[in-house]
């Protein structure tokens, strides 16, 4: 029913008049070239510790990709006159792809800027930044994937550099161990995912999302079992990428063990990448299954996952002593919120676009506030004052601006009014209610209330409690980290007045998928 319109009217959008069609994936290409450029530079002058050079090139590359993406978004590439498909429809560029590419590239830029300080004195800066760029490339590819084959390959492209990045601190046991766990769970999930793809292929005879949808349009009589297991296994693959229960086990360890900028990157961008591809695959290909006989109610499955994820993530976060691990669990909880964007879909439902758009907007704001929060952790790790709530006591006396930014992130994550996170959660829950899924919204609201408890603990530690003498180590001001944290805070605050625009863009992009 909701196949992507195959041909885009090249003349409909003004942009295509000027540029050839393949330039639609320019953001992806820019990221790829940046990664290769980093390797080339390091290959020509190996061994030189060019942390600054590499950071500069990576930041430039991701910002260039971001600029092009935003330009396309504004110019209406892939939105006005239908989406643009390339490589025999294996790649599609539309509003949603650009929206999420904007998230990935901005998070990547923030992480790169922050990493410059974090990596000072480390060897192999080139591999770090190039892996980061390749991971971003994989995510951007996930956003434009239009075939199960590209979905799988791009997902792996995003995952493999992530494993290496998590284990980047080779001398740190936690980093290496969590990397290995991440890899093992990832391999298992990939296997499940690939198996699911093969089952779907078995039923529909195609990997292209539009053709899969066409195959399901005729019903799944006789193959319901194969199709159902296939669809749920694919859902499992996405659940792994988005760190949703029960595929979340890697997340707390990986986020905690990884270098903090990488935790920021994984919990924000990587999660969003999982969602964009899940949104696309399920809304494009699997919508017909919702009202097929027998029904393959994957939306209900996502609803179950959403509830379990929200509850488990928030409950586990409430009992953590380690701030980074608390954030890791909170990030799982937020995956549950975003899952509402899939769970509240109904066959031909009039609110589908609103629900998914609200989830997209939430992921955008989440991208900034969560990245900012992890980057604050990165700054604290950089200072080396400790990891628990007690260690954070009184940090505001030493770093007032960063602490203020952290308070903004925490309250925004909790969804308090006057911060961006409030509106995105509100829009999400409101759209879920209007789509008839009030109980999802209720669970979301209750767990948000719970989340306020542990988020405010951080603020309390920073601002109210007295320093306990471990803050004397703070003697430097990491400029890049500071800039990234402050920028993320500003973006979080600015997304408050800017939220209507973001939501409108997201809902237009999401509605295009259901058109």
């Amino acid at each position, binding site marked *: 029913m909701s196949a992507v319109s195959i041909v885009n009217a090249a003349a409909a959008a003004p942009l295509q008049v000027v540029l050839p069609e393949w330039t639609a994936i320019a953001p992806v290409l820019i990221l790829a070239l940046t990664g290769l450029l980093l390797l080339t530079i390091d290959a020509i002058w190996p061994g030189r510790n060019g942390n600054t050079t590499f950071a500069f090139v990576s930041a430039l590359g991701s910002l260039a990709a971001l600029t092009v993406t935003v330009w396309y978004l504004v110019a209406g590439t892939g939105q006005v006159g239908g989406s643009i498909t390339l490589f025999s429809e294996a790649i599609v560029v539309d509003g949603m792809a650009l929206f999420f590419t904007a998230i990935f590239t901005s998070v990547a830029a923030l992480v790169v800027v922050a990493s410059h300080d974090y990596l000072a004195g480390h060897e192999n800066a080139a591999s770090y930044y190039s892996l980061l760029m390749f991971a971003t490339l994989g995510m951007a590819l996930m956003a434009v994937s239009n075939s199960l084959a590209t979905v799988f390959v791009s997902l792996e492209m995003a995952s493999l550099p992530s494993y290496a990045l998590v284990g980047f601190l080779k001398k740190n046991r936690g980093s290496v161990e969590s990397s290995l766990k991440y890899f093992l769970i990832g391999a298992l999930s990939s296997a499940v995912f690939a198996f699911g793809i093969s089952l779907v292929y078995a039923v529909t005879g195609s990997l292209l999302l539009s053709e899969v949808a066409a195959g399901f349009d005729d019903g799944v009589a006789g193959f*319901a079992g194969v199709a*159902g*297991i296939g669809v*749920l296994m694919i859902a499992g693959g996405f659940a792994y990428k988005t760190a949703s229960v*029960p595929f979340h*086990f890697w997340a707390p360890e990986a986020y905690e063990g990884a270098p903090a900028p990488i935790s920021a990157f994984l919990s924000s961008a990587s999660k969003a990448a999982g969602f964009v591809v899940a949104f696309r695959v399920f809304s494009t290909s699997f919508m017909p299954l919702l009202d097929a006989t*027998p029904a393959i109610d994957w939306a209900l499955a996502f609803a179950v996952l959403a509830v379990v994820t929200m509850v488990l993530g928030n409950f*586990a976060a*409430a009992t953590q002593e380690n701030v980074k691990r608390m954030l890791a669990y909170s990030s799982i909880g937020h995956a549950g919120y975003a899952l509402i964007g899939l769970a509240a879909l109904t066959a031909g439902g009039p609110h589908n676009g609103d629900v998914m758009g609200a989830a997209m907007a939430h992921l955008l704001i989440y991208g900034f506030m969560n990245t900012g929060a992890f980057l604050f952790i990165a700054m604290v790790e950089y200072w080396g004052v400790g990891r628990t709530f007690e260690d954070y006591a009184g940090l505001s006396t030493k770093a007032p601006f960063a602490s203020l930014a952290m308070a903004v992130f925490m309250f925004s994550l909790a969804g308090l009014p006057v911060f961006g996170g409030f509106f995105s959660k509100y829009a999400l829950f409101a759209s879920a209610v209007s789509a008839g899924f009030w109980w999802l919204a209720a669970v979301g609201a209750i767990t948000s209330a719970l989340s306020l408890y542990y988020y405010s603990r951080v603020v309390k530690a920073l601002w109210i409690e007295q320093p306990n003498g471990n803050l004397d180590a703070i003697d430097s001001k990491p400029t890049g980290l500071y800039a990234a944290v402050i920028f993320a805070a500003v973006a979080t605050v600015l997304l408050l007045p800017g939220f209507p625009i973001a939501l409108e863009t997201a809902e237009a992009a999401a509605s295009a998928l259901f058109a």
Partner: protein
Amino acid sequence: MAFEYVPAIVLLPFLSFVIALFAGKYLPKGGALAGIAATAGSLLLSIWAFLTVRSQGAYQETIYTWASGFGEQPWELTFGVLIDPLSAMMLVIVTLIATLVHVFSLGYMNDEGETGLPRYYAGLGLFTASMLGFVVADNLLMAFMFFELVGLCSYLLIGFWFREDGPPSAAKKAFLVTRFGDYFFLIGVVAVFSTFGTAAFVGAESFPVLAEEAVAGDVTVNTFGFDPTTWFTIVGLLVLGGVVGKSAQFPLHTWLPDAMEGPTPVSALIHAATMVAAGVYLVARMYGFYAVSPTALAIIAFIGGFTALFAATMGVVKREIKQVLAYSTISQYGYMMLALGAGGYVAATFHLMTHAFFKALLFLGAGSVIIAMHHNENMWDMGGLKDKMPVTYWTFLAGSLALAGIFPFSGFWSKDEVLYEALIHGLGGSPLLLGAYAMGLLAVPVTAFYTFRMVYLTFHGEPRTDTARNPEPVRWNVKFPLSVLGVLAVVAGLVNMVPVQKVLGLEGIDYLHQWLDQSFDPLTAHHYAEVSPYSSGYIGGEATTVLVGAAVSLGLALAGLLLATYLYNVAEPTEHTAKLGAIKDVLYNNYYQDEFQVWIANRTQSVASVADTFDQGVIDGVVNGVSSVSLFSGSRVRRIQTGVVTNYAALLTLGLTALLLAFGLLGGWFL
């Protein structure tokens, strides 16, 4: 033009609050000068607004809409100003007295070397700002918010000397008792919103207008199944709860005498002239709403008349000068309530104005005496101050004559009009009002008696202590406010000489009547007269009734005065309370009102303890339970994360399998 500056009237004192709070300790006089400048500025702006109302008529503007509903509840919650004759007059009164009190405070607080002055002036500034905000409010919700703010300021200022025993507990009592009334008020506000969908005071869609139309059957509002009149009575009485608390009416009056623990200028400003007037002002503000409910009016009148008499009797035996004034205040507000309940909208407003002047004067005079007496308030320790402090004496005397209702002082005119309205409307077929009138009338001699007992004990006779023989002199900053108010106490009554007009047939000297008729259409005095359920009856003709009424009340006042003169205007007055016998104890103990309330409080303790048990056991239990269950399950959830990767893989696979099986079996995939 002037109306554009109306918000500044409110904001100037707020500014002085901020200045005193944050910069007060760096300023000379602890922020007093900023407060004086701000209130004086507000006074000038108020006068300007007053004159503009006179020339251009009333004015209403919505300044800020801070919440608006949608769908089926298109309510807007707004802040706005309503400047009509009533509020303009009130603005002038409040700003004038606030300015004078600020000046007086220089003498009472600064010269006495009090500490914590910035806190004091910050409190005064915030109070003035809140009170002015309440006065200009153009809707009930905004009025309620500022109503609560003045209550807060009252609490802060009563407890100014928080290190002593009395003030904090008096402050708490004032806060709790008024809060008790405010609960009803709050419910009333909600009821008004849910009934009419608006809380605006003025306009075609305002709730008094809608109420009137609903009673007439022209519009339908949500009355929750009641007859409109019944429901409006209920809502009106709910709002009246706040009024009774704030204006210290029976049975919620007990906080006001205790509130005298606060500094005397505070008593003058808050607990005599302005904040306690807020309740009366509120009823006057939404008088159109009460006018459609005869029952509510009758209750208001009865409460007022009873309070007037009841409080006056208690004032008779008090030893402390401020206590006498406190009971007198309660009693006088009873008169205003009586007037409102008796359909005398103008009379109530009139008495509100004159009382504000002469009672502020009396409190400031008492303050002056207290300075002189080194903060000894016991009248039995005074005496003979007449010659030592002439300015205080003469102004105090003017205020006392006004309070006692002696012709031609201001109090006479206003009190007479109050009683006159009650009388003619009572004669016009409302015998209940006659009862209220009788109580009001009985209170007249008692008032005159306790007033002059106070004057004689304080100023006349021989000094009874060394302090009274050598009182501390007061400076200009005390004498100046006294003089201003003294003049006003004498002449303020001339703005509304209705009896003279009626008897002599002179037209046009009832300025206040004309003034209050200049408002927006449904807020005018004659409209209220039309709506009110009363008709007038006379003894003989109108002029005769006026004469008879005035003669009776004046005669009674003189009788009370003479009795006081006979008993206390002697060189060595003695306590005559023994002659009252058993009544003495009753009066000393304020009819055991406090004891009664404590008794009630103790009786309700079992209820309260049940509620407490419920609260601690069930509510807190649930809350604590939720949090401990959360934390417990959180720690359980933590344990799933064992750290062993094979466990993760197993759980992951199990989870996926469970999901597959559940959906497969329920979805019937394998059939």
